[in-house]
């Protein structure tokens, strides 16, 4: 049998030691009325070769994004991942280890995750980061729950969130009695600061917003964090961590908790998972944080050593009073981000973020030149922005026939935006790719 090493002789000897005559006797506590009659109705097991053949065939029914000239982002980005990232992650020392509960034989995992925490703190300017959560959506939900614990308040203001993050937040809050209210956008697509200011009071736990927001726009965060502070409202910001190579650290701007999806930091597309969720906060909120945290300490000889720490926040110690139910997280992906950031360094990150920015700006400028295209918002974006065309869905389909994925169609999530497309342009795009898109778009529209 696959992956079973006991021989029939081993089994015979072991059963004898146990004092039973058959394996069946070991199952005698299970009432016969609930025993399966016959075997599971599954196919016969396959050889490794057959499994490979069958699943490779399934993989070939997919068309990877890079076969297209693609401008699709919307929360998941096909950045270049240096080969060294996957090479290190494939090492069975990280891949096949469990949670580092036993510090002395897990120093490698622990130190790597401590580095991850340090990198995230560096990018966000925060004092503390946990060891990762599942994804950006659940990280946002956990950040909001955290703000409710910190403030003891009942109301949440939001703006500019990814629609799936919004839905996830609703689910996470559905068993608890809280009120979520959306702050409207102003005519330029940014947070309407007047309404925000009017909505703030001592019932509001947090203002949870995204910057860049779902439509790609980068908010003037500093312009409203002092309002938040004056009302005791926590600023919770969803950030694209790669954009933080270019933009000021959220902590510097007066934010209390940063969360987001770590996929842009060396993660593959993976059909949307796994990547990882990041969560970092000001030091005073440390004991309200969910999830694992790694600390640096000493061994008994006084040498530096690492271990899981502040576990009294967690479910295996605190049970129903824990800060979250999270147990398994996405450590391997977080370690992948640490490797990515190490490889890229300051120069690489500057180069990637500027390339994304420049390519997206170039695409924006070229789109402006196309007759029939309207661009609703300005140029304050990082790597994606919204544009508008009559019969957007059909234009996208025609471009697809020319091997171009124009972006993310907004009409499904936002019925009022049925002619809008969110296009993303990252470092892997070349000028030729963008020019080709514009040329084909002009042809689709005007023949």
């Amino acid at each position, binding site marked *: 049998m696959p992956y079973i090493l006991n021989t029939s002789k081993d089994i015979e000897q072991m059963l004898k030691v146990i004092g039973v005559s058959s394996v069946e006797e070991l199952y005698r506590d299970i009432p016969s009325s609930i025993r399966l009659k016959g075997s599971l109705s599954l196919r016969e*097991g396959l050889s490794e070769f057959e499994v490979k053949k069958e699943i490779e065939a399934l993989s070939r*029914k*997919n068309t990877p994004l890079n076969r297209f000239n693609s401008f699709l982002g919307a929360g998941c980005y096909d950045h270049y991942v240096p080969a060294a990232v996957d090479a290190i992650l494939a090492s*069975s020392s990280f891949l096949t280890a469990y949670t580092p509960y036993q510090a002395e034989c897990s120093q490698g995992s622990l130190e790597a995750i401590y580095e991850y925490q340090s990198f995230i703190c560096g990018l966000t300017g925060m004092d503390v980061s946990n060891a990762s959560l599942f994804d950006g959506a659940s990280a946002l939900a956990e950040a909001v729950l955290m703000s409710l614990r910190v403030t003891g308040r009942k109301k949440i203001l939001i703006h500019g969130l990814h629609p799936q993050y919004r839905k*996830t937040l609703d689910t996470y809050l559905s068993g*608890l009695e809280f009120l979520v209210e959306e702050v409207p956008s102003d005519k330029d697509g940014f947070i309407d600061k007047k309404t925000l200011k009017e909505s703030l009071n001592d019932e509001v736990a947090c203002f949870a917003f995204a910057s860049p927001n779902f439509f790609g726009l980068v908010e003037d965060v500093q312009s409203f964090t002092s309002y938040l502070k004056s009302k005791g409202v926590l600023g919770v910001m969803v950030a694209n961590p790669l954009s933080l190579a270019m933009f000021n650290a959220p902590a510097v701007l007066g934010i209390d908790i940063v969360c987001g999806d770590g996929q842009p930091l060396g993660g593959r*597309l993976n059909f949307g998972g796994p990547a990882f969720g990041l969560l970092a906060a000001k030091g005073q909120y440390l004991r309200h944080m969910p999830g694992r945290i790694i600390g640096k300490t*000493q061994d008994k000889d006084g040498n530096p050593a690492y271990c899981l720490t502040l576990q009294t926040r967690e479910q295996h110690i605190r049970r129903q009073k824990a800060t979250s139910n999270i147990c398994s997280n996405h450590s391997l992906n977080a370690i992948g981000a640490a490797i990515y950031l190490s490889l890229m360094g300051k120069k*690489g990150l500057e180069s990637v973020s500027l390339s994304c920015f420049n390519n997206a700006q170039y695409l924006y400028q070229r789109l402006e030149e196309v007759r029939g295209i309207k661009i609703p918002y300005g140029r304050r974006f990082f790597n994606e922005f919204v544009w508008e065309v009559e019969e957007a869905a059909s234009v996208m389909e025609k471009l697809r026939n020319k091997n171009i994925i124009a972006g993310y169609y907004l009409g499904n999530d936002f019925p009022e935006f049925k002619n809008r497309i969110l296009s993303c342009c990252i470092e892997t795009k070349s000028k030729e790719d*963008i020019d080709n898109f514009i040329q084909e778009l002009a042809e689709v529209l005007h023949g």
Partner: protein
Amino acid sequence: MAEEKKNNAKEIPDKTGYIIAAGVPLINPGNIFPEGFLRKEIPISDSGELEVIRHYSRLSKNNFSLDANFYPLGSCTMKYNPKINEYLANLEGFCGIHPCQDQRDTQGALELLYNLQQVLCEITGMKRFSLEPSSGAQGEFTGISIIRKYHQVKGSKKTKIIVPDSAHGTNPATASMCGFETITVESDSRGLIDINKLEQLLDDDVAAVMLTNPNTLGLFEKNILEISRLIHSKGGLLYYDGANFNPLLGITKPSLMGFDVVHLNLHKTFSTPHGTGGPGAGALGVVEELADFLPVPIVVKKDQSFYFDYSLKHSIGRVRSFYGNFSVLVRAYAYILRLGAQGLLRAAQNSVINANYLRVKLQLLYEVAYPFICMHEVVLSAQRQKEKGASALDISKRLIDYGIHPPTMYFPLIVKEALMVEPTETENKKTLDNFIRIMVEINNEIDTDISKVKDAPHRTSVKRVDEVRAARFPDLKWSAEKSSKQ
């Protein structure tokens, strides 16, 4: 408005070897963003690729892993992670597809998800499965959210969840996250749920009982049908924490035991690697009556094609973005295809044989908390050794010197000095005999030279780690002066 100049390779600031110059005109971000928006300094240092590789190679040597060490960590099911599954998960046709691509481009992925939903239904007897939850705990959150909404839709206000005192910590934590009060039911002298106490606790406010079966003592809750009858008679539901499902593959199904909602830890029972603590996957299945409450989307098949269905009438919504941990799901599906019905049954049986073999061999020296036939794991108590001065922790640390990852310690909470041992089916008698020999040796050391055990480990990159100090003086990142790696 922007000062634009023609790009050439030299003008891309300090590009590294990974990025090619795109050739578009360069814009100074300062022309677009007002003062205060832009970062002045990225606090990450530059290293060469070889330096990075050497650094992580060094770290990887300081780790125990399943591929290198026997890893009998109770309740974690550290079975072998077949290499073919890694190869398959990393195919470009899987890791290079975007979640928002047109469904015509991702039919292979959808077919795989559909097939996995179907085989998990067959294995558990549930009607419908969602593959969205990222972990066991998120599976629990999904399941308990479904239970809450189900009662809401039926118009009954239920406020309590019952969990046994031997339950995983995630169970009560999940109940709280979903807004329920947790009620704990005690175990009886046989390590099983005390039926009389359960009956006293059950009232119309109880939304569900959360159980793992076999329980965390490794014992099968043989009164499961009575438990099911009791909770259902009060209008409540029965939740199956599938963390311990491994020994029951092909033996029974949660549906036959009366469970309404089931989560499976695909990183335990279905062999996907644990990755230093994740990513895993916590697939969630339900009976027919709850099928409309699952998170969206689920994958359905129509004619010969597959698509995402968002139309479930009472769906609880989403628990995360996109469709779950897809590349983990690829591995689990490959594993099930490889084993088939017979392979899964043999896996279950061997996990039970291995655990019982350890139980019988070790009970001569170590107390077995509940000395009965067990399923996939056995909980030892180091109470005798503790009286001689060596705790479960000391024994665990000494095992590290012998190249064995320690069992789960001090859990379940109802056993003093607990050592929870789960060998899994992929280990053989030879490995188990070696483990037994070492456990005997450690017991001898406690009698003859206890400091060897008390001061362990001796052979690791660090000596015993001061965890109290870590909590008292939290050092959670590089200091400001040293915000770069050595």
